[in-house]
């Protein structure tokens, strides 16, 4: 996979990375034929981010064909998992990016198991970052936006202006809608001292929205911190934000859509125990312990559907997202994430009880693919580790010492090919000198 991001779009891409960073420490880099998808799921499975850049976003986008090495290997580029901490420094200062960087090349080298981010900056400076990744299939949320009775669409500027009234430390926010008004208010957990917490409430008129549809009066509470990344991202793209949601307990989706990109942040909402008992939801999606059997059948259906296709499930899946109502109203709900191992259904449906180990098994999707990965990993187990170390070293080397080297070895390359050769050469040279010194010492002793 190889793609080139032009100067103007770098800011958008940088903000996308920052937005995803708010969700989790790692994310999936998922190139598909039509473009590049970035996905992230947080550790408690209560937030899921998906940002898709179509091939038109890039100056140049090559999925498989075109690159000699890809053709030779005859491999499909696989989605890979990266640590946010490694990628974030590349796009750290978004404003500086805009000013100094002319373009950014991103390409994967499956054999070497690393992704290269290369920033071509002004004044002939080339910064190359080689990062290792883990191959694995990403998780995708199953959520049917078109089934949501409540839809709001507003300018990103307006949404930012609303959220600015909440302090940065505010964790959760409630959105309450009726056909007559919209209200965003701060949410404090019941066990917090009310006499200390400041409460903020913003009332808006439906006129302020580009599109306003309220099918059912509802009050949904979601995590504001996770949303802030999307707010910054949407401001960078200046596209209106659509909010799809239902009653409390069902997830809320914030999405933006453009000619060249599309993003969706799906957040779980707190369920309200009082509302549950009075709810009129069809039994298929009812929350609570009694409908376990129904739920498992639903899960299996969706699993098989989901496993069949790797493509994003936004429109294809006709099912609404399943959520489990925990006993305590304070617990965050898990968004249904596929793929799930089917034999874990009995415990898995109680969303909140899934443990760490289960999370990892959930990551390996299709059995066949999983086996392939596993064997390959074992095979190259040791090799992988050492390569990992070398890559980390080379990452540090390049990131920290690149300028230093260029002074000594004289070459600051404009072209990517030369840069890579140059870097490999410099690594080789370094190890040579070490050996030499050791030999010399030995000879002296003797």
């Amino acid at each position, binding site marked *: 996979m190889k793609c080139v991001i032009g100067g103007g779009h770098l800011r958008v891409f940088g903000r996308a990375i920052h937005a995803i960073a708010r969700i989790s420490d790692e994310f999936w880099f998922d190139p598909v034929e039509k473009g590049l998808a970035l996905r992230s799921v947080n550790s408690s499975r209560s937030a899921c981010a998906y940002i898709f850049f179509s091939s038109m976003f890039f100056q140049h986008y090559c999925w498989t064909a075109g690159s000699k090495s890809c053709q030779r290997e005859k491999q499909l580029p696989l989605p890979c998992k990266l640590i946010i901490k490694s990628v974030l420094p590349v796009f750290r200062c978004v404003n500086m990016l805009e000013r100094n960087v002319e373009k950014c090349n991103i390409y994967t080298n499956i054999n070497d198991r690393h992704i290269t981010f290369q920033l071509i900056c002004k004044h002939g400076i080339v910064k190359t970052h080689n990062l290792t990744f883990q191959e694995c299939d990403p998780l995708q949320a199953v959520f049917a936006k078109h089934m949501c009775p409540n839809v709001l669409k507003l300018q990103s500027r307006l949404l930012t202006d609303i959220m600015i009234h909440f302090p940065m430390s505010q964790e959760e926010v409630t959105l309450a809608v009726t056909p007559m008004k919209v209200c965003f208010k701060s949410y404090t957990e019941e066990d917090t001292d009310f006499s200390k*917490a*400041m*409460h*903020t409430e913003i*009332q*808006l*008129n439906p006129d*302020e929205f580009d599109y306003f549809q309220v099918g059912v009066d509802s009050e949904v509470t979601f995590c504001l911190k996770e949303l802030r990344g999307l707010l910054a991202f949407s401001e960078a793209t200046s596209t209106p934000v659509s909010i799809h949601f239902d009653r409390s307990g069902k997830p809320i989706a914030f999405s933006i859509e453009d000619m060249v990109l599309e993003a969706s942040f799906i957040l779980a909402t707190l369920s309200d125990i009082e509302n549950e008992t009075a709810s009129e939801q069809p039994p298929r999606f009812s929350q609570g312990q009694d409908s376990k059997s129904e739920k498992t059948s639903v899960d299996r259906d969706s699993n098989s559907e989901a496993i069949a296709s790797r493509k994003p499930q936004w429109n294809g899946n006709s099912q609404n997202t399943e959520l489990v109502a925990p006993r305590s109203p304070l617990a965050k709900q898990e968004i249904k994430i596929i793929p799930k191992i089917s034999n874990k259904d009995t415990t898995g449906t109680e969303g909140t009880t899934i443990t760490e180990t289960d999370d990892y098994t959930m990551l390996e999707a299709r059995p066949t693919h999983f086996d392939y990965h596993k064997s390959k990993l074992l095979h190259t187990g040791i090799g992988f580790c050492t390569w990992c170390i070398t890559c980390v070293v080379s990452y540090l080397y390049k990131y920290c010492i690149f300028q230093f080297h260029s002074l000594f070895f004289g070459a600051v390359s404009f072209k990517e090919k030369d840069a890579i050769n140059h870097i490999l050469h410099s690594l080789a040279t370094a190890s040579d000198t070490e050996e030499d010194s050791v030999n010399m010492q030995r000879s002296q002793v003797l």
Partner: protein
Amino acid sequence: MRFRAKIVDLACLNHFSRVVNTVARLAKTCTLRLTADKLYFILSDKVANGGVSVWCELCQGNFFDEFQMEGVAAEHNEIYLELVPENLSRALKTAQNAKTVKIKLTNKHCPCLTVAVELPSLSSSSRIVTHDIPVGVIPRRLWNDFREPGVPDFDVSIYLPVLKTMKSVVERMKNLSNCIVIEANLSGEMNLKIETDLVSVTTHFKDLGNPPWASDDECQSSAQGRDLESMAEARIDIKKLLQLLAGQQVNPTKALCNIVSRRIVHFILLHEDVSLQYFIPALA
């Protein structure tokens, strides 16, 4: 007990926000005293505060378009509230282009100061942002704790240098030492000194001027008989000084300090309609 006030003018709102910001930097919790024509932000000198005390006085007429207050009782027409000024500061921060700001005392789940901001919006009706700031009502028997501190019997009174300069000097010094010595004399000279095992740094300010104080027999006797060159000094916590200096966003009309040698330093900052007094006790 009732309290309702409204600010309509943006400049007044701006000014009020700045005062609240300054107080927020000086104290985590403070007392708001409301009378018919004045507001006071008070921090009394308890050990918990490190011995510092704050007294900030505002004339309500200069800020509020409407101001209605009904105290605890007819003969004690005042309200004392305990609040976190940071909350009030945050509520006013995003109200900078508001149409109106209303502040009133309410009783929701607990006594609250409700700040209702009416913001302009694209639609016909305005956007309303409401902040409920929890407050504690201070009972009358404790009102004596919050009396105005008297001007101490100082040795030297001197105008402060430009606060911005003073702030940048003290900020650099903060990295080197925890306490700073302020000394000044009646010839308009002031020194800020820090001394550690490794280094000692002194910044000298000259030609600052000494404010004339209304002659009071006690003051005169200590001030008049004083040698013009001799310095009165006090060693204070540098962080407390920095809190005062960092909180100043606008240069005050008058800024002076009174030093009682080795006892206390008393800062007075005057804007047109706001007076702020800050006491820092000297360290042993």
